């Protein structure tokens, strides 16, 4: 088990370094991004004096390294801030306060994360079912019409941007057929049924886009496995085609599917911007784009770190799952 402990430790250190590097990059990039933050925060018709006051309030006049140091301090020991009438404490790890809403970034993230996670994990189930199912079918019916049809459909998913798929689905399914409600996020803990019902369409839109990659991967891995010697063994022992496909060929595709899936889940947490936007799901991606537009640096840094964290963690989890799926692999 010490091997696993070492793995966790190494990955932990790697994660911290990666996230630190990301935060520095974001700080630098947004430092040179145009947009007078104080003016944006204060309002367009603020006088120069007011803008100056706001800039002081937000420490915008400090040199970049000091601002970054302040940010690190917040993470390590938290930070105090004034609401005007009282002094509040943002406890460590504090990612700072939004320039715009004076909200604690950590709380903002906690509010948005359930939405993004609901979207991504639900969609994940669908894209695995759709993608792997399609992949298995097309590996089985390889070279026949079924396979070509399925390939075409999944590629259509890739080729059509989500804002087109999603909108058309919504107009048809919710507007014309009235099969589903127009999506509106409902918390999982508030009402699980409504949660699923409302998210079904976003899940489907996101899944349609990702499914093709899984279908291709599944099919390719299965065909590769089918060409391997051990399949010949089982054929030579009278094992039926169904079992060969379903048990042996599919099993060979597990590990690569896990790897791809982890990759996609990790990046979709912050990457499903367009899906969130279209369906009005108040998730990380949507908030992040908004924060970028108003140059709300603390929010941008915080959100990017969370997204980076998920990507890194997803990959670490994938490595573990991969090692479980394929026992020949050792964690390193």
């Amino acid at each position, binding site marked *: 088990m*010490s091997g696993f402990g070492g793995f966790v430790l190494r990955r932990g250190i790697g994660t911290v370094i990666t996230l630190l590097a990301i935060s520095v990059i974001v700080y630098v990039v947004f430092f040179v991004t145009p947009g007078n933050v104080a003016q944006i925060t204060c309002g367009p018709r603020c006088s120069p004096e007011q803008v100056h006051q706001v800039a002081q309030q937000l420490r915008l006049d400090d040199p970049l390294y000091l601002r970054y140091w302040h940010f690190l301090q917040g993470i390590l020991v938290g930070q105090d801030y004034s609401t005007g009438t009282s002094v509040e404490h943002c406890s460590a790890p504090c990612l700072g306060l939004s320039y715009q809403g004076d909200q604690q970034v950590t709380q903002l993230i906690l509010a948005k994360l359930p939405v993004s996670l609901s979207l991504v994990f639900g969609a994940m189930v669908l894209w695995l079912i759709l993608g792997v199912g399609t992949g298995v079918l097309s590996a089985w019916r390889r070279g026949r019409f079924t396979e070509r049809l399925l390939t075409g459909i999944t590629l259509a998913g890739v080729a059509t941007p989500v804002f087109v798929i999603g909108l058309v689905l919504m107009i048809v399914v919710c507007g014309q057929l009235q099969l589903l409600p127009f999506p509106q996020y409902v918390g999982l803990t508030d009402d699980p049924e409504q949660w699923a019902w409302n998210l079904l369409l976003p899940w489907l839109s996101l899944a349609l886009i990702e499914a093709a990659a899984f279908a291709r991967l599944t099919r390719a891995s299965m065909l590769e496995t089918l060409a391997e*010697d*051990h399949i010949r*063994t089982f*054929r030579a*022992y009278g*094992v039926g085609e169904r079992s060969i496909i379903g048990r042996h060929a599919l*099993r*060979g595709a597990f590990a690569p599917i896990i790897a791809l899936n982890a990759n996609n889940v990790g990046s979709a947490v912050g990457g499903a911007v367009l899906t969130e936007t279209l369906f009005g799901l108040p998730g990380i991606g949507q908030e992040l784009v908004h924060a970028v537009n108003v140059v709300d640096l603390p929010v941008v840094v915080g959100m990017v770190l969370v997204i980076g964290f998920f990507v890194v963690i997803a990959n670490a989890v994938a490595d573990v799952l991969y090692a479980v799926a394929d026992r020949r692999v050792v964690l390193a």
Partner: protein
Amino acid sequence: MSLVNSSVDGSTDVLVEVTDLTVGFGSLRAVDGLSFSLEKGAALGLVGESGSGKSTVASALLGLHRGTGADVGGSVRVAGIDVQEASDADLRLLRGGKAAMVFQDPLSSLDPYYAIGDQIAEVYRVHTRVSRRAARARAVEVLDRVGIPDALRRSRSRPHEFSGGMRQRALIAMALACEPDLLIADEPTTALDVTVQAQILDLLHTLREETGLGLLLVTHDVGVAAESVDEILVMRHGRAVEHGPVDTVLGAPTEPYTRDLLGAVPRVDVPRAPSEASLTNAEVVLEATGLRREFGRGKRAFAAVDDVSLTIHRGETLGIVGESGSGKTTLGRMLVGLLKPTAGEIKPGGGVRPDVQMVFQDPVSSLNPRRSVGESIADPLRARGERDEGRIRGRVSELLERVGLEGAHYDRYPHEFSGGQRQRVGIARALAADPRVIVCDEPVSALDVTTQAQVVALLGELQRELGLALVFVAHDLAVVRQVSDRVAVMRRGRIVEQGPADEVYDSPQDPYTKQLLAAVPALDPQVAAQRRAVRRELATA
């Protein structure tokens, strides 16, 4: 048709009846009009070089060509089932139920993702309606039967957790699970070390003795066949060359091809004419002292080569022999400088740059498929600064001719050559650097015996002519004896025995060397039986 039917009705003991079998893949005829039969409990060896169609025959017995687009003609009856005419369901009953197959590479022949016991149980359940639990019990039983210790626990392991020999035992266990009448073994020991090979052959022998299994053994190794079967069928280009009892075919071959084949097989018990160099105590060209090489770090570190010292003289051949994992390849790579030793040093004799080159095992991967062979051979010349195209071409052509190819082959690509020819290209490339030493890492193990003999002969010739020192790394004891003046036996990274070839082979001192030599299959069935007895002794000792 009616004839065949009557033979089944006539309750003769015919297990396999192949009549005028042809198998074609497109324009290629892999098997061309082959007929033979096998009685219950008998053992037939199909022997031939690569491309002779022997494995195709094995597949045809189980109808494995069905649905692949191969063109199968003639008739095949196995255990009373007409393989050509049988329904898919009947064919599945045959496969594994009446006739089971054991494949060459035991690792890739098992599903890497499932426990071995589960895989055997799965196959068992295809043929017998039993519960999962009963099938697992049966799996443990057959695993125990083939000599896997602690079978219950080991049945839960996955293939990669087994050693090569264990895997092959597991495959044999799978074959035994449904108590078939016929065992088809397709090169069952080719991927195994010689000691393990002996164990597997012994196992097959015992199983036959005890269960009365019929055996069809497909192999390229005449020695393996000699150890295991009653009858031999020598194949070439899809046709039968010679067919008869093992003693007759091996003892008094009538066909010239069979004679050539037997002549090419290296013998472990035949001494080599010593080279001049070994007699004259020539100068030392390479000296290695206290070599050690570790892989991995921390807890996973292990030494592939540990405290190895060698000297190599001009014009002599040093054979390094050992089984897989013995560290012989690592040692070879250190000698040429592809790997840096963790400890110890390698120095050229007389302080001259050693100029060590290498000939690689795999003729496929040792040449860049995207460059012409001429370009590959020219590499050392260009690297040394030669810029004159004409001179380069001239030298490369010369080298190509020297190794028995044509100078005009300069612009050809590796895939246009056969395995043996590619190995010649590899030799030419090594020569291009004007080396004093060439390390040959299993240079012939991927080649057929006849080709093997030619390449070995070429190396010997070159050595005499150019005064090269050769380090010949191989697992095949016979080949090593054939070429070496001195031999070093390696085991687990160390040299256990080193000395003149004849001494090591004829009066081995180390028990491991003895074990190795006892494991070498003999061409003479009588000798084989003797060796089997010796092995039992060694094992119990």
